[in-house]
């Protein structure tokens, strides 16, 4: 009998082999292997069609195009939109050219994105911050004047601060795909380009709030939450409700401070992407616990700063201890009460779960 099982493609990324369905992109194949080989992504967003290819954060080297045609690809390729071929060999973290180029992309993005994390509302949830930390260089070589804008309220719920926009176009795709009448987009060209609304129009569509969730940086922020709290001092809880809006999944994360729900967002997966979008009623009008069916504490990646307030064992990731061991010398009289049977850690490491 004919074998009707779908044929899988073998791809090797950073020397690790994985089998994926035809049509899978290099980025998704890498994500299937895990965080350590997944390229960073600033403009790609799984649940929005047509995204990707713009920021160039995810460029990788294809050292063999396929088993049939093992020639390397001449240029680095954007992994988020390049589909795999059977026998393809990809280099990401093991390729010097890729890492050097990525440093360049970080440097370019930081030209017109101020490093004002201490006052930005996205701090702690910012993909650019992570990208710069993991892939950037320690110094900036740009000495010229940067572009600056006034903050702008684009509708009752959203504030735009173009200073921080990295023109990833995610919000444009969101508005295009989730709302009926798009009233905002990209104006002008090059580094004069900016996200803005049609003259005197405001964004007041039922699904506009999702633009906030997809913005990888602090350019679009939730006016009902701005500066109420640092996210790492809030506690994310997964909840749902039966939303009457046919397109709304009603599946959310509630961000608590004490008893109060300070913010409602869509639920994000481990790649920081919302898989099911929510309507503005759920996001902005339902801020009482009684509005929701609570499911439990939201899973937060232990790498995330938000995990700092989660009193779980993994709050300090493995690499934190390793780094501490390398960088600090043993202090014998460390006044930490250790659980029975556990060895004394090196350096001054405050463990949240030992409080």
């Amino acid at each position: 009998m004919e074998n009707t099982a779908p044929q899988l493609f073998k791809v090797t990324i950073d020397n690790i082999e994985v089998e994926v369905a035809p049509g899978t992109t290099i980025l998704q194949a890498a994500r299937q292997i895990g965080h350590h080989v997944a390229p960073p992504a600033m403009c790609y967003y799984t649940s929005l069609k047509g995204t990707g290819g713009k920021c160039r954060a995810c460029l990788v080297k294809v050292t063999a195009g396929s088993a049939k045609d093992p020639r390397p690809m001449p240029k680095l390729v954007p992994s988020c939109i390049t589909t795999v071929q059977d026998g393809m060999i990809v280099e990401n973290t093991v390729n010097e050219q890729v890492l050097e180029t990525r440093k360049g992309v970080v440097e370019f993005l930081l030209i017109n994105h101020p490093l004002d994390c201490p006052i930005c509302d996205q701090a702690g949830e910012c993909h650019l911050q992570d990208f710069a930390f993991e892939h950037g260089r320690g110094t900036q070589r740009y000495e010229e004047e940067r572009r600056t804008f006034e903050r702008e309220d684009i509708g009752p719920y959203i504030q735009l601060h173009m200073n921080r926009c990295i023109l990833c176009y995610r919000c444009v795709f969101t508005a295009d795909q989730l709302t009926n009448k798009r009233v905002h987009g990209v104006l002008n060209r090059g580094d004069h380009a900016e996200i803005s609304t049609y003259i005197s129009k405001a964004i007041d569509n039922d699904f506009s709030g999702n633009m906030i969730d997809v913005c990888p940086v602090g350019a679009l922020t939730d006016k009902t939450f701005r500066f109420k709290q640092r996210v790492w001092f809030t506690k994310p809880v997964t909840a749902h409700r039966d939303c009457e809006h046919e397109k709304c999944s009603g599946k959310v994360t509630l961000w608590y401070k004490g008893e109060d729900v300070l913010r409602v967002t869509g639920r994000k997966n481990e790649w920081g992407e919302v898989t099911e979008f929510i309507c503005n009623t759920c996001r902005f009008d339902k801020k009482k616990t009684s509005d929701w069916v609570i499911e439990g504490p939201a899973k937060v990646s232990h790498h995330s700063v938000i995990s700092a307030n989660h009193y779980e064992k993994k709050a300090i990731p493995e690499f934190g201890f390793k780094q501490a061991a390398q960088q600090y010398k043993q202090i014998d009289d460390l006044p930490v009460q250790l659980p029975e049977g556990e060895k004394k850690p090196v350096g001054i490491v405050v463990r949240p779960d030992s409080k």
Partner: protein
Amino acid sequence: MGIKILTEHIGKEDLKPIDAYMKYGGYTAVKKALTSMSPDAIVEEVKKSGLRGRGGAGFPTGMKWSFLAKPEGKPRYLVCNADESEPGTFKDRYLMMHSPHTLIEGMIVSSFALGANTSYIYVRGEMMFVIRILEKAIAEAYAKGLLGKNILGSGYNLDLYVHPGGGAYICGEETALLESLEGKRGNPRNKPPFPAVSGLYACPTVVNNVESIAATSWIINNGGDEYAKIGIGKSTGTKLISACGNINNPGVYEIELGLSVEEFLYSDQYCGGIANGKKLKALVAGGSSVPILPAHLITKTANGESRLMSYESLSDGGFATGTMLGSGGFIVFDEDQCIVRNTWNFTRFYHHESCGQCSPCREGTGWMEKVLHRIEHGHGHMHDIDLLVDVAKKIEGNTICPLGDAAAWPVGSAIRHFRDEFEWHIKNPSEATRKGAVYRKEAVFA
């Protein structure tokens, strides 16, 4: 005197009226193609001719045509790229202004070969005068039964439209052009898919330059083999070159590929030598985006061979010692021209024209411009030179469309060949910013 196939009759009389054009054999290619040839046979002839795209990249036209997907039930389109905005390149508008029917005839022949029943000529919006000329010519062609339904009784239908462009350089990039034609912001698309598979309105599309399309009529009338005999090696046929800068006879010339650069530059038939008896300092051979060459690499390659006006000879030695034929914008600099100022000027253009989609081009072009501005105005630092080289490298090859490369190459090559001039600017700010001051190093002139 080289053979002319596109501009042969220009200047004899006003070729804009269709009757004048027909007097010189105009539209015989349409008749031959539609009544005695199959579309595949035309594609074959174009393949045989060795014609390479005249828009800049030099991709073989026949091969591009044969990639066109032919799904049933989907229209196919031919789009003529008449955006022409590369600084230094002004040959397409010359042809369209003086002989619009040469393009229209080529459009009919090429559309028939590709099975397109609707075709577009996308003209830069600012060139309203060209748009009017083309519209008038198209109306004449319709009136003569050369466009519209059942052309010359062949059963073939074709509608041809002129579409004013967005007035942005980036709209000349083929996928941005298609976006613009669809009524959207002229942002380049990610490739693949290529237009041959999914182009205008997601249908198979060929985008070709004015000059490439115009050449097809001659190829049909005379055969691909005859065309391939003109020129040299893989650079077959003739090429329109727009020559400008410090030369005695600026203008548009049709040359046989393979003519020596020396003859083109110095003979009275073409550029007529450097103006005002000055010395030659540098040359940009193919429009502002291609690498600049210093005098000692212009008429001779690095091996000492005579440099020819051909794709291969101009690129001899790669970017280290060569450049590109590009779109044929021949810009000549004499000894009084400042390379730093020129590089800043080019970069200013690319900065202004970057669409802003991808980070390296959006941010890098502006960065380079600002650094070059500083150096030119006497505020540069020595480390700026290496910084520019590095920023250009970080852009090159890493962007969605080739505008990033086009912005990076002039900077990289200017520093590669004229580093001492950049250093002089930085070391002598007060001298460098004095009006008319220019760095002179005798050895680099010819």
